[in-house]
């Protein structure tokens, strides 16, 4: 028997479209698979099919997930799809299939004995945790123009999960969060809604300088950071456990110059 592989674009829209098309094919679900991005290891006896993202189909799948499985599952699916892992599309697709076979569909995410649901759960948890770490450890620098600028380098695509938090927190600030690895920017103009934008391939941010106040306050904070520790209790291991090294690259207190410009 032939296996069918749907090749989807690596985005929420792309994968939701893939799920829609998979259902359209009316083939047994265990012979249908979703892969994300180009497949580099083609199999024999398998049919590969490109799947162009379609806004209407994606919206329909999103609506269905939300309606049938509730907000918890919908949020988990969105988080799981922010992951860089290649099997995310397959996990979400099969979790949806599992969901339709359940009596209480709203309990989908509680069904951790199912391997696909568990995979979605794991991926979503990683994204949620990383998003939370960024809410904690992200640092803004004030530029001469008064704009607050924060570079980040997350593994999952979390920028849309964290920006609303900062937009609510600082409605009267102009700020920019910059995902270094994906070159995406979340821009929040003072008093207005935030939006996403991206840098062109190979594009760079205009040159910027830190403000006078920035030097002063970053220095004050570094001083505070050092005096607040009780040296009789020093524990590098504990510190590293709570604050993984990979976040420190962007943090003012571990990188006193702020940013190498």
């Amino acid at each position, binding site marked *: 028997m032939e296996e069918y592989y749907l090749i989807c674009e690596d985005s929420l829209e792309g994968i939701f479209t893939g799920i829609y098309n998979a259902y359209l094919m009316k083939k047994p679900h265990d012979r249908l698979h979703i892969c994300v991005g180009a497949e580099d290891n083609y199999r024999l006896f398998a049919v590969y099919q490109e799947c162009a993202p379609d806004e209407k189909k994606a919206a329909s799948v999103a609506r269905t997930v939300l309606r049938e499985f509730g907000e918890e599952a919908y949020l988990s699916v969105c988080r799981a799809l922010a992951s860089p892992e290649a099997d995310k599309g397959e996990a979400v697709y099969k979790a949806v299939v599992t969901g339709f076979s*359940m009596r*209480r569909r709203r*309990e989908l995410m*509680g*069904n*951790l*004995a*199912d391997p696909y649901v*568990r995979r979605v759960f794991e991926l979503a948890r990683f994204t949620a945790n990383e998003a939370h770490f960024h*809410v*904690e*450890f*992200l*640092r*803004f*620098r*004030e530029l001469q123009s008064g704009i*607050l600028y*924060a570079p980040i380098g997350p593994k999952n695509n979390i920028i849309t999960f964290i920006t609303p*938090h*900062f937009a*609510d*927190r*600082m*409605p*009267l*600030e102009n700020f920019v969060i910059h995902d270094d690895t994906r070159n995406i920017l979340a821009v929040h103009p003072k008093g207005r809604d935030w939006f996403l934008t991206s840098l062109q391939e190979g594009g760079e941010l205009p040159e910027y300088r830190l403000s006078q*106040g920035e030097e002063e*306050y*970053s*220095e*004050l*904070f570094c*001083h*505070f*950071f*050092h*005096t*607040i*520790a*009780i*040296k*009789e*209790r*020093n*524990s*590098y*291991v*504990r*510190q590293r*456990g*709570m*604050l993984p090294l990979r976040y420190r690259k962007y*943090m*003012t*207190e571990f990188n006193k110059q702020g940013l190498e410009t």
Partner: protein
Amino acid sequence: MPFGTEAAMERDKNQLISVPVKEQPQLPYLAAINPTGQKTLMEKLGILSDAAKYDVSCSSSGVGRKGDGTGIGNTVAGGICHSFGADGRCISLLKILFTNECIYDCKYCINRRSNDVPRASFTPDEICELTIQFYRRNYIEGLFLSSGILHNPDYTMELIYEAVYKLRTLYRFQGYIHVKAIPGANPLLVQRLGMLADRMSVNLELPTAEGLSRLAPNKHRKNILTPMRQIQRGITQNKEEIAVYRHASSFVPAGQSTQMIVGATPESDYQIMMVAENLYRKFELKRVYYSAFVSVNADKELPALPGGPPLLREHRLYQADWLLRFYGFEADELLSEQKPNFNVLLDPKADWALRHLELFPVEINRADYRMILRVPGIGVKSAQRIVRARKNGALAFEDLKKIGVTLKRALYFITCSGKMMYPTKIEEDYITRNLISNKEKLPFGADGMTYKQLSLFDDDMPGWQKIAGGTL
């Protein structure tokens, strides 16, 4: 309704704030101790954060509040840590003292009157600027403001109030604020400060009244418990008001906490846990913090601690504290008069389980949630996931592992569909040996903190500590 309304606040402010500030010229003490001029902000921050660091509480949890769009700040119910210091403690709030000048002479405290340490005081504006500027860079989650006692409790409390009032009204700061209620201060001040703060705390300092009178002769148990009771009543009353008037302003919405020093006085763990349990039950505290005694002063009343602060003991107390708050344990179950201290080698939950082997093994697919919570190796989250996941079919050991259960600890106490993971003896000695042999992960250690044997030739012990031999 004397509090809360804006007109009343304005009136109170005129009555209480302006009077003492007028009477006493602006910060006269600064000129006296520092005749060459003011300290820089950097120096002040250094002195006053260094002086505040022994306060344990740094949580920013307990209240979720959206920003209203007119200022800066919101709060998140779960709290947010923003950094971790070299000691691995979380840095969530800008933790500072208003001033480290103090009329009291508590023996354990670095800021006591008789110590010769540099002194400094902030102005309310400096505190506001620091808070806002740190906050907008996402360094901190809010302000933790405590203070030494300057002149008298009322005066100190008014200074704190002035800073917090400015921060809330002038700077429109809506982030988290934790303030200390100063024991002995006018109840009216406590009440009004509570309308501005998210969390308030009064430190119990030491677990028993006897210890307090020995080490903190200027403080009295009664003075500490009075504001604690007042805040508790304020919170209850405020909840009723909010139920009726939805927009009534809230009083200490994140609840109150306290802390006590462990290891400075000879109380047993049992006594400490009983005190903590009473504080949770009778005073409805959100948190009780335990602070391993750090020897900063040489004093004949204080114990010498050549092995450093009693961190393991503190850790066990926190573990037990969690058992009280989230696992449905009672202090009496964990310790007793006959067994007044925690086991050094085993955590309190495993220790309890080993003394109650008649209740085990527990069948994961049937047992009550509360019983599953009591199994060593299963935490609150795993227990919740188990109860939810088993509705869709029986769970096996493999599933438990994926769910997050620490099987190497739990396997002696559970069955899945009637079977144990391996054939094991349910026998106290056997399980104890096995539990101890897979090493417990302690949050400290590896760089310095171990259970080191005391030796006569311990040369990293400072000389004065040997001379100031303690009573313990």
